[in-house]
């Protein structure tokens, strides 16, 4: 078992860290205030290869894979977790094209997504809920050479900065009656709706999409009719959950850094508070949470690259890392005392970010269901 990152992966981490510190740090205040993703960075992210990290070179990507993707997202998230939140959904969109798109769809959409000409969207969740995928109500009815879509999608990341949406809609009954489509903003009846105002991960746009007799060309069906559930689930398992776990890794990195720095700098009773065991215990907890979350998340990236089935491991990584980020951020706030709840100190933002990460990309409860099923099967 080799836990050492390769020279390539180390250089990748270093280059993304440099990029994030120089390019993203100066934009964070505006992101926090406006709730807007810095779209002006998309071009340079495309040039860096960040957007096409899991897309093969023939479609404009680098094809470095899922372990590399986690490194990229963790390093971006170390500086600003909202960035990997937006990009992990962007990757989910490219993943769908890479895995189920036909040649013409890949050639049409992937180079633009990898170059940062637009952001990617995957629209599954509806106002009736996101966990009950089989119960979704958005319909797609074949009418000649077009599908007519009707319905509404909510909590959609990147909705306002994308012209390429992967949309799951109902073409038949039950779970096997779902299909995936690529919908362009310009299609008649496609509309971007309200913008959400989240408490955390504010720099990642979240909004609503609506389809009112939206005309989607028949050739925009991804895969075949009835594959929508598989597309959605596989995308969540191999991209969405590891992506959210990576966002959480970014948060945890930030939490540990802020907590340790504050502990080293703050003096009370005539000495540094870092000497107090009451400060060292929670610091050790944060450190453990980061290291465990790292091992779980990187294992999933490696498994995907090796084509090993990882639904349970992916659920575990996501659930553990996101909850670890929230509890660690709270501990970091406690280490800070009253400073922790002041806006000048980043720990309060990190807690807000972590709280948003918990339900995003599949709730903790659904992830636990996956793990429980696995546990019961092992001894059933």
């Amino acid at each position, binding site marked *: 078992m080799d836990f050492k990152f390769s*020279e*390539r992966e*180390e*250089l*990748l981490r*270093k*280059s993304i860290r*440099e*990029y994030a510190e120089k390019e993203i740090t100066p934009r964070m205040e505006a992101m926090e205030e406006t709730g807007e993703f810095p779209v002006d960075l998309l071009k340079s992210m495309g*040039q*860096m*290869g*960040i957007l096409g*990290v899991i897309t093969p070179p023939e479609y404009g990507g*680098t094809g*470095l894979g899922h372990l*590399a993707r986690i490194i990229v997202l963790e390093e971006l998230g170390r500086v600003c977790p909202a960035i990997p939140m937006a990009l992990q959904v962007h990757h989910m969109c490219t993943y769908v094209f890479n895995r189920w798109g036909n040649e013409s769809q890949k050639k049409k959409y992937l180079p633009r997504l990898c170059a940062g000409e637009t952001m990617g969207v995957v629209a599954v969740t509806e106002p009736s809920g996101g966990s009950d995928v089989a119960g979704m109500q958005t319909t797609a009815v074949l009418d000649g050479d077009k599908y007519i879509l009707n319905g509404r999608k909510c909590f959609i990341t990147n909705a306002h900065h994308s012209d390429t949406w992967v949309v799951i809609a109902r073409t038949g009954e039950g779970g096997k009656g779902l299909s995936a489509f690529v919908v362009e903003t310009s299609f008649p009846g496609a509309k971007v709706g309200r913008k959400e105002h989240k408490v955390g991960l504010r720099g990642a746009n979240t909004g609503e999409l609506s389809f009112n007799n939206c005309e989607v060309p028949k050739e925009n069906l991804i895969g075949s009719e009835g594959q929508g559930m598989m597309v959605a689930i596989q995308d969540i398992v191999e991209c969405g959950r590891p992506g959210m776990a990576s966002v959480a890794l970014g948060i945890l990195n930030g939490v540990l850094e802020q907590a340790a720095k504050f502990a080293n700098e703050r003096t009370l009773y005539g000495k540094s508070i870092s000497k107090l065991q009451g400060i060292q215990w929670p610091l050790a907890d944060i450190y453990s949470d980061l290291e465990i979350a790292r091992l779980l998340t990187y294992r999933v990236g490696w498994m995907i690259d090796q084509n090993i089935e990882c639904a349970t491991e992916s659920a575990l990584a996501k659930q553990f890392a996101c909850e670890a980020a929230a509890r660690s951020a709270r501990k970091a706030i406690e280490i800070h005392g009253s400073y922790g709840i002041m806006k000048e100190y980043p720990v309060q933002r990190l807690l807000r970010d972590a709280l948003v990460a918990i339900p995003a990309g599949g709730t903790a409860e659904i992830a636990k269901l996956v793990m429980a099923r696995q546990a019961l099967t092992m001894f059933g």
Partner: protein
Amino acid sequence: MRTIVCIKPVPDPKHWNRLALDPKTKTLIRKGIPGTINPLDKHALELALSLRDKQGGEVLVMSMAPPDSGPVLNEALAMGADRAILLSDIAFAGADTLATAYVLSAGLDKLGEFDLVVCGDQTIDGGTAQVSAQVGEFLGVPNVMHVTAVDVTSSGSWLIHSQIEHGYVVVEIKPPMMLSVLKEVNEPRYVTLMNILEAEKKETRVWSSNDLELEEPWIGLNGSPTCMVDLFVPEKKNKAEFLAGEPREQAAKLADRLHRSGFC
């Protein structure tokens, strides 16, 4: 155009809090501290790459460093250098700036003709700012330090902007030349994911003392006239003194204190 960039692996500043001095040997304990390209050398490499982007040609990186310096050279290749030469031999160990410059110039001699040799003005570990001038002397080419801009004119001569105290000078030179740059010269490009993959296809050659024309008394510790008297970590003192009184009185007290301390 052929440019050779001399780079030095240095301990990554992000890990300097873990650096320590060996009390006996007075050397840095680098174990576990990742290396990186000396920051100003990155600006030198960027200058070489941007000249190549405009004029065409080849950019090589050269470093005299321990054999485990591959990742640092690889980073230079991933930034865009065409190939790398590592000058590495136990015989080079303990070299001061003169012995380093001597070995580097031997490596440069072996590479043959060039238009430009460039490096950072100084390194963040040694900080002597001597190597570039010494290499320039060994090579017998014009040498300009503290470079902040380079303009290649249509006549073939280059206008080199060099920072001096309270201003700058512009020097007109025809290649070949040796330059050392300040950070103001440019903003180094990022290492892209595509270039990380490209770098894996590029060549890094390792040359030992046997591959170079060297005279033994000039290399390594024997070839180093510099004698280190002492090296120590300054004691950390958190001592604050508050000056009482109205602002005018406080200013007068401060000025007096500074004067008595020899600062002004």
